[in-house]
């Protein structure tokens, strides 16, 4: 069989194929942080609100406190011996190392930010990555006359009487401003047309 002798091309292509595979494998690094908790587990953790902790609960023992605000806010003022990890760097090696050794020693880390919403994103990410020894400090921090005021934050409380608004107030005549109210600029949210096309196949 004549063509079996012509092996130049096949050997070149096989070597190239193997090279591509080797390069691919060598340059490949496994994803560092992998979700340990499934969505359902995280959801059930959200239902029980024991991850929200008030300031006075932790006043006694000296806790590990993590401040997720930016460096500048942290430098202005922060809760004493709080460690500053801005949310953007929560997944950096340094912070992951810190969190894992906090987890090994069995302590719980408390996360706080300007308000619980900010701390929530960092906390949820860490929880899903398996650091379930973290909790959110349910506090609102703002800097008033160069002293950090930390107040407990009432979370998701509806304003007491917002239903009455529909009954009481009559619209007072707004006559002193006679200019025709400009048509509010119609902000068009560009709807990304992303069609997910399934692959069909077969012969």
């Amino acid at each position, binding site marked *: 069989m004549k*063509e079996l002798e012509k092996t130049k091309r096949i050997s070149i292509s096989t070597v190239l194929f193997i090279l591509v595979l080797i390069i691919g494998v060598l340059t490949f690094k496994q994803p560092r942080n992998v979700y340990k908790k499934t969505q359902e587990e995280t959801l059930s953790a959200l239902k029980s609100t024991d991850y929200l902790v008030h300031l006075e609960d932790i006043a006694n023992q000296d806790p590990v406190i993590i401040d997720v605000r930016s460096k500048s806010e942290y430098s202005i003022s922060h809760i004493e011996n709080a460690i500053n990890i801005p949310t953007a760097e929560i997944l950096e090696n340094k912070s992951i190392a810190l969190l894992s050794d906090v987890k090994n020693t069995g302590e719980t880390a408390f996360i706080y930010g300007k308000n619980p919403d900010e701390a929530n994103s960092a906390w949820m990410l860490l929880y899903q990555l398996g650091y379930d020894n973290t909790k959110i400090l349910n506090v609102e921090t703002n800097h008033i006359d160069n002293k950090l005021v930390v107040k407990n934050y009432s979370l998701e409380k509806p304003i007491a009487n917002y239903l009455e608004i529909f009954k009481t107030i009559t619209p007072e005549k707004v006559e002193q401003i006679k200019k025709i109210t400009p048509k509010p600029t119609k902000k068009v949210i560009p709807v990304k047309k992303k069609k997910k096309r399934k692959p*069909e*196949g*077969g*012969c």
Partner: protein
Amino acid sequence: MKESKKNRHVYWNPYFGGFLLGLLIIFTFYMTGRGLGASGVMKSGVVTMVDQVSHEHTLHNAYYSKFVSGDKSPMNNWLVFETLGVLAGAFLSGSLANRIGFRVQHSPKITVKRRLVFALLGGILFGLGAQIARGCTSGAALSGMAVLSTGGFITMLSIFGTAFLFAYFFRKNWI
């Protein structure tokens, strides 16, 4: 042998051809998420022809109606375009190695008529089998094996198995 005649039958090294075909399958799966195919074209062809002949027949027949429902014309199918490419590619490769020419390739022992009869018979059987198994050698077996699909392996084994079994009966056609 004449120079042009000599290199008419020099094909690629089969391993090289297989290697390129493997890369092509990877490329197809990477781009479109589906494998190659061939016998789907004949089905679309038949369905369009039957549809031209009598439209309501295609609507009533259980098998045709699957392909003619709504505005989806059977010809608007991935395989039809792929087959156009196959025709062009084969013509290109054939002309490069000047294998183009109308002829019937048959073993010296048999007549052209017998070869054509067996080709027709083989075609009918293959058309039937391809529809039952939902795929032919390149669609079900090759693309199936690329993703380790059990159906693909079974189809491949049964095709080559029965082919080897029945090879004895058709040996006069080939050897």
